[in-house]
């Protein structure tokens, strides 16, 4: 595509003059399955009956069952084809990881996320402003997004107003949060004996005498021999979130509006936030969203759409944003007292006072983060029937901006503790008093942490016409986008020319053709442009004559699509991969006797890629949509994807003898395949409406080529396995005694002792080393199986709703410090680890012997630490009551009212005894929540 073509197109668009037409925008509310609207970015939505793309829809009925902070968290577990994995963290930062159809490529598998058709961060979009979330899965669904759609897409569509109505709705959620799997670490006396045991195992002398361990136990000398439960002292057991949402929906003859204000405030788990007079050190989160979606009919043929979202968000955390959970996972109960005898915060030479989580949560003041975002877009649609019947033109401009500003009010503090000396007369003495740190004033720094902005423009013509049994919708569009980050020379420009055509015959046969020509500034000259054609077709079998008598089939449609989607991924984020860069530096080779030559030096970076292209996804999909027995909605999908030309680093293919880093090459190949089933049954038995359904996803993949270096042993070969497959050693028990060690192959990681992990000699070479690693378990990044079950019933306004969600074929490596890998680097030990350790008396243990110093043999990735990460969770449970209309009518004001009690993530069935399978690191435990809520519509 050349510049002059663009100019012609632009001129044409400039000539467009307002004309006539008033279309009703379809919404997902209360739609039947067959009528669900499908939006593939063609400026027109289609019903499921008409669409040929593979798209699943999360409707407004289920987008807000979790009272979550944002839409991302509120749809966890939903959406056929969407793999959403919950993550832990502070309230402000906990966001799920999404995949559409699992892992797909060596370059990453992150899907495109769109809000109202434009790529946007959804972390600040509240569930209340969302009309629907659709999952765009196959090539036909993502074709129009050009280089960005290869990994599938999630499209969030916000609510809009309605002509000639008005209503106001107030929703209030009061959320009680509890910690699931709060970690338990041992008390000081147990810690002392564990350390002694570990040191004895390592051949070292005991650190604590019997007297000292008794002192830890008795608590008689709390300053010399403390016993602090850091988790309980730092954190309380529950926290509260409040959500208030007020929305106004409605419109007049020529005007529609949806306006919403949403307020969220969350108070975290810090146990004692109020110890300072003028400020709180609580983990706090406050956010306000203000959205206005306006549809204005300027003339009967000219429509203007304005979407505005402003977000102000403020987060306050204890001093220096310290990772308190990380500290609580490190500090032993015997380390030091919370405060020493003179009232200073505890701290000593081994465990610095800045590792004191209580001190950090109270005495270090606080840090504030402000995020300010604006999402704005304006669309102008002009009916051009005066020119040609069925023709209209549309342009859209969007500008988004986000910045994050950090204000650091933190301070430092003095810490110390008494160091015990030798015992005399049955009592300890004080050897010395340690002090460290210093008291400082609160900080005054403020700086911009991040910044990003995006400009989007698109414009085009569409033409709609029906004649006889034929119907055609065709759109020609140009879109342009620039995306700017908080960095230099990193702005991305992209543009797409697209021609998209939907053809229908007799309301039974549909064919869509997308021809997209995309360009990106990221790619090398000569490869910036790519053509992505997609063809898809649908056949509504239920409308055929031969189906007339099959009464139990209400709707049945077969779909198929095939398309090529290109991607503009950079090899290892290198923008200059196609030219070898020479770097001139000031340092010199000193030929000069004073080593002062003014010579600079020139060095070279990686070899340039020759014959470059870009990653390609060949996507194939077949699907079946059906409604059976007047209430059972069924979707079946099968897909196959072939990714090739994936960027890989070619050092495995070349030798270093070439004298320079091997170039990146478009050589990677990954195939992925899988299927999805979605069932939803709605039925009314007398006064009871009943709903039952479920979703099941299977996603598999295989690396076919990645220029892997040739391996000496088959067990090391990764090509042919799945993406992010876990590799490790196979444990075959623990060494019983020295005799057992002597009679086993040598393990080279470190000198082994009885109680250390014994490994299988996988390659059979007689020694155990890194060459014995092999594929163990599954991926730790994404599960292969993902499923959910939902059920609900309602009787006279009283209802119950529940959703269970689970995963399978998913692995974890339990390497969390203290919790599973205890004591090393002066960390503590969990009760669980302590109870399951190997000792001479308990040789049948789960975990190996304790060690006090780094034990390279045991702390390898291996099957002892490998865990089955599959689970089944009750994601949400709701009991609600809708007040009867009759009653409400008498108020003359209230049109609807609902009270509800929700439970979020109330339980998990899994294989981990003391951790959550979705979060087992040294971080915030996941929450369980109970919500009391009320919504009133006026």
């Amino acid at each position, binding site marked *: 595509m*050349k510049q002059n073509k*663009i*100019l012609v197109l632009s001129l044409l668009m*400039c000539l467009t003059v307002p004309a006539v037409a008033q279309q009703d925008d379809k919404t997902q509310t209360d739609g039947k399955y067959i009528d669900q609207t499908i939006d593939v970015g063609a400026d027109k939505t289609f019903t499921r009956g008409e669409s040929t793309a593979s798209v699943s829809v999360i409707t407004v009925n289920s987008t807000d069952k979790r009272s979550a902070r944002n839409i991302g968290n509120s749809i966890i577990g939903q959406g056929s084809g969407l793999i959403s994995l919950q993550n832990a963290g502070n309230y402000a930062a906990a966001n799920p990881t999404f995949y559409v159809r699992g892992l797909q490529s060596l370059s990453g598998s992150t899907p495109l996320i769109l809000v109202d058709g434009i790529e946007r961060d959804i972390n600040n979009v509240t569930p209340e402003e969302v009309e629907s979330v659709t999952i765009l899965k196959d090539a036909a669904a993502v074709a129009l997004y050009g280089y960005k759609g290869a990994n599938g897409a999630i499209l969030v569509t916000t609510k809009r107003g309605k002509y000639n109505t008005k209503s106001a709705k107030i929703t209030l959620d009061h959320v009680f949060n509890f910690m699931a799997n709060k970690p338990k670490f041992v008390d000081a006396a147990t810690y002392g004996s564990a350390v002694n045991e570990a040191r004895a195992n390592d051949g070292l002398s005991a650190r604590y005498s019997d007297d000292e361990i008794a002192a830890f136990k008795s608590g008689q000398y709390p300053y010399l021999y403390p016993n602090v439960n850091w988790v309980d002292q730092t954190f309380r057991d529950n926290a509260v979130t409040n959500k208030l949402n007020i929305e106004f929906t409605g419109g007049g003859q020529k005007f529609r509006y949806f306006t919403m204000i949403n307020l969220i405030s969350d108070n975290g788990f810090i146990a004692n936030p109020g110890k300072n007079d003028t400020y709180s050190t609580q983990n706090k989160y406050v956010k306000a969203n203000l959205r206005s979606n306006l549809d204005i009919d300027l003339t009967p043929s000219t429509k203007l759409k304005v979407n505005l979202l402003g977000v102000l968000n403020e987060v306050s955390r204890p001093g220096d944003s310290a990772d308190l959970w990380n500290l609580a996972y490190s500090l032993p109960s015997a380390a030091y007292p919370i405060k020493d005898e003179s009232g200073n915060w505890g701290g000593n030479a081994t465990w610095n006072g800045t590792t004191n989580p209580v001190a950090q949560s109270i005495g270090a003041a606080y840090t504030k983060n402000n995020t300010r975002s604006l999402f704005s877009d304006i669309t102008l649609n002009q009916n051009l029937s005066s020119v040609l019947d069925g023709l209209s033109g549309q*342009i859209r*401009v*969007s*500008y988004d901006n986000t910045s994050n500003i950090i204000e650091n009010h933190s301070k430092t503090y003095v810490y110390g503790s008494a160091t015990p000396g030798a015992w005399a007369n049955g009592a300890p003495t004080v050897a010395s008093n340690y002090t460290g740190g210093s008291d400082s004033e609160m900080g005054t720094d403020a700086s911009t942490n991040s910044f990003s*902005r995006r*400009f989007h*423009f698109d*414009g085009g013509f569409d033409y709609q016409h029906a004649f006889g049994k034929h119907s055609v919708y065709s759109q020609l569009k140009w879109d342009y986008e*620039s995306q*700017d980050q908080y960095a230099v*020379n990193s702005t991305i420009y992209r*543009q797409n020319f697209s021609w998209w055509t939907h053809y229908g015959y007799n309301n039974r046969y549909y064919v869509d053709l997308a021809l997209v020509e995309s*360009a*990106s*500034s990221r790619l090398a000259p000569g490869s*910036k442009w790519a053509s992505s054609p997609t063809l898809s077709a649908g056949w509504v079998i239920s409308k055929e004559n031969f189906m007339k008598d099959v009464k139990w089939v209400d709707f049945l449609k077969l779909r198929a699509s095939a398309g090529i989607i290109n991607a503009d991924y950079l090899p290892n984020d290198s923008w*200059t991969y196609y*030219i*070898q*860069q*020479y*770097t*001139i530096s000031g*340092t*010199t*080779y*000193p*030929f*000069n*006797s004073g*080593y002062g030559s003014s*010579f*600079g*030096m*020139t*060095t*070279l970076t990686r*070899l*340039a*890629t*020759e*014959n470059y292209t870009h990653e390609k996804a060949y996507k194939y999909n077949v699907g079946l949509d059906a409604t059976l027995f007047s209430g059972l909605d069924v979707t079946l999908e099968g897909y196959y994807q072939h990714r090739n030309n994936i960027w890989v680093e070619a050092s*495995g293919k*070349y*030798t*270093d*003898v*070439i*004298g*320079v880093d*091997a170039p990146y090459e478009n050589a990677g190949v990954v195939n992925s395949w899988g299927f999805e089933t979605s069932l939803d049954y709605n039925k009314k038995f007398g006064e009871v409406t009943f709903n039952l359904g479920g979703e099941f996803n299977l996603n598999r993949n295989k690396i076919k080529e990645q220029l892997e*270096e*040739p*391996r*000496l042993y088959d067990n090391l070969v990764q090509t042919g396995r799945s993406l992010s497959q876990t590799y490790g050693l196979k444990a075959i028990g623990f060494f019983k005694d020295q005799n057992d060690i002597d009679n086993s192959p040598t393990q*080279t990681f470190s000198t082994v002792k009885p109680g250390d992990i014994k490994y299988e000699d996988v390659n059979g070479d007689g020694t155990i080393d890194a060459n014995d690693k092999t594929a163990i378990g599954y991926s730790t990044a994404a599960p292969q199986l993902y499923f959910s079950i939902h059920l609900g019933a309602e009787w006279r306004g009283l209802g119950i709703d529940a959703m269970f969600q689970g995963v399978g074929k998913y692995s974890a490596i339990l390497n969390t410090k203290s919790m599973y890998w205890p004591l090393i680097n002066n960390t503590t030990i969990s009760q669980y680890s302590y109870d399951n350790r190997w000792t001479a008396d308990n040789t049948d243990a789960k975990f190996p012997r304790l060690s006090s110093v780094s034990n390279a043999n045991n702390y390898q990735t291996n099957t002892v630490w490998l865990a089955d990460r599959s689970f089944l969770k009750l994601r949400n449970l709701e009991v609600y009551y809708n007040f009867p209309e009759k009653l409400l009518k008498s108020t003359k004001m209230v049109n609807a009212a609902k009270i509800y009690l929700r439970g979020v993530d109330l339980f998990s069935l899994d294989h981990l005894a003391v951790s959550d399978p979705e979060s087992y690191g040294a971080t915030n435990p996941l929450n369980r929540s109970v919500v009391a809520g009320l919504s009133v519509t006026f």
Partner: protein
Amino acid sequence: MATITAIGAGSCTDELAVGNAFLDKAAGASVTEDTVFNNPEYTRQFLAAIYSLQYYGLPYQSSSSAPLTSSYWTGKFDALSDCYQLHFPNSGIYKQYYSGTFNANTGGGIYGYLTENVWVLVRRAYLLLENIDKVPNMEDSEKARLCDEARCLIASSYFNMFRNYGGLPIITKTFTGTESSYNVPRASVEKTVNFMVGLLDKTIKDGNLPWGYTGTDAQTNTGRWTKAGAMALKCKILQFAASPLFNDTKGYYGGTTQAERDSLVWYGGYRAELWTQCKQACADFFAQLSANGVYALTQPTAKTQEAYRYAYRFGYINEASTEILHSVRVSTSTRDSKYQWAYLNYGRNERYSYTPTQEYVEMFPWSDGSPFDWSAAQKAGKLDNMFIKGDTVVGTQDLQHRVLTRDPRLYETIRINGVPQSIDWNSGVASGNIYENWVGGSDAGTQPGTETGYFATGYANNKYYAGDIFYTTLHYPQWDAIRLSDIYLTYAEALLQAGNDFTGALTYVDAVRARVGLGGLAACNPGENLTSNKANLLEEILRERACELGLEDSRYFDLVRYKRSDRFETNTHGLRVYRLKKDTNGKWARVTDKWWNGDKKTDKANKAAAGFYEPTHFDFEKFELTSGARVQWNGFDAKWYLQPFPQSEVNKNYGLVQNPGW
């Protein structure tokens, strides 16, 4: 629409480009091949950067990236010889080589195939050769000189790799990344040698390189390859090639391995002409030397021990030395870089604990040149004077009329008990406190007793320290890649090997000895028939090389090229020195007291006290080293003569045949 776009983009100051223009990458600081080779200054800098990739023979930093030999976590070749033992347990030498656990899968190594920047250097040198014609505003003569420097750089890097691996893939151009295959098989030893010698012959013949830099040129160009350097390097390459490792009637590993069958690790038989070629290269070198001058062994200004020491020291360490044929410098070196060789706590650090062995110390003859013999000295009661001799004068604390009794190079190479520590940079005079190497002494402390640290053997290294002078004065640490005395000894060896020229050989060895005041080799060793016994003379030449070229990568490769498994199997020794002090009964008894910082009495009133006088009487105990005991001491596997190629490279199937035994 234009209006709307303009408003939308109004928040940016960048011009809004339409069409392909906006897809262009923003202008950045990118420099390409064309930029470099369109500018003579950049081209010169490009060559300077190649120089910075040269092998530097001293560890001086803590780094896990190439070149690994620059890191003290790896260790130096000399610590694999019988002259030094390294006592840093976390070094690669100690952990992998002494323990014998090193193998083709370990990665790294003392001279890793992929971790020494050799191939990077080779590529860049060819880039220069291939592109220099394009450079504008540069005289052809300068272009020719830069090219010949690049050829020397290629040849010297190849040689560094060759002496560790044998035959190598021969690279003759740059790879672009578009080649359909990367078949770069190992070449035979013969081809590899011919390749290196061919590059050097071209530069020698072309005559574009100066013979040497003198005067002000030397101030700004020392370190560049010269014709003298190229000719000397050729001698060293041919010496290695002609030595028995590669040039024998039988392959060193028995002859049946594939690498041996393909002549990748030897010539496939004995070729006498290789020594003749080596001799000829040396003869050519010395002919040019006498014609052009510039280089000469640094000669003493007087026939005193001080003058000899100074001549030797100046010769190897001083920037203005006329004895260094090619030196390598560390480009980022500044005096204050704390990881610089010698700057890590004055070299008083376990990481640099290259402790000389008793075997090494005994190689140094008496100061007149006659060989040192422990049992003879012991019998004669001369052990107390085996390093130093002097008189205790009543009322004077320090030893008077102090005489160093051994080869002056011993004191320059090793920190010896009783020798004054403080060295004058401009003379051979040493003064101040003496080294107290005895168990409990101020310097050695407990180290010889526990066999740890930089005095673990009872001796500490002094080469490239010269006391603390490298640290305390601003003398830049250039490392001698080729030194003139090395070529003297190489010529001596070649004369003997090529034509049994005993007289010629002795002339060149004796020239090196004379510079430090030692008598003629034959005269000093009357029992060894050095004018007729080839084996004995060869042994003496190798010994002389060890004494002359400590920490210059000489001894280890000498043992390798002569397949001296006997020396590799020697469990080396240290020396525990015990200070003797008269007890209350007037009997000499061992004490572990320090003297200075200890019982040294400074008030003259105390001169009758035992601690007043400098200790002069010691017990000596040789002990077998046990720390870092080498598996090779219990039997040397011939595979250790060469390094293994990384298995991951062999697996790539581009033609690397693994070395025998690995």
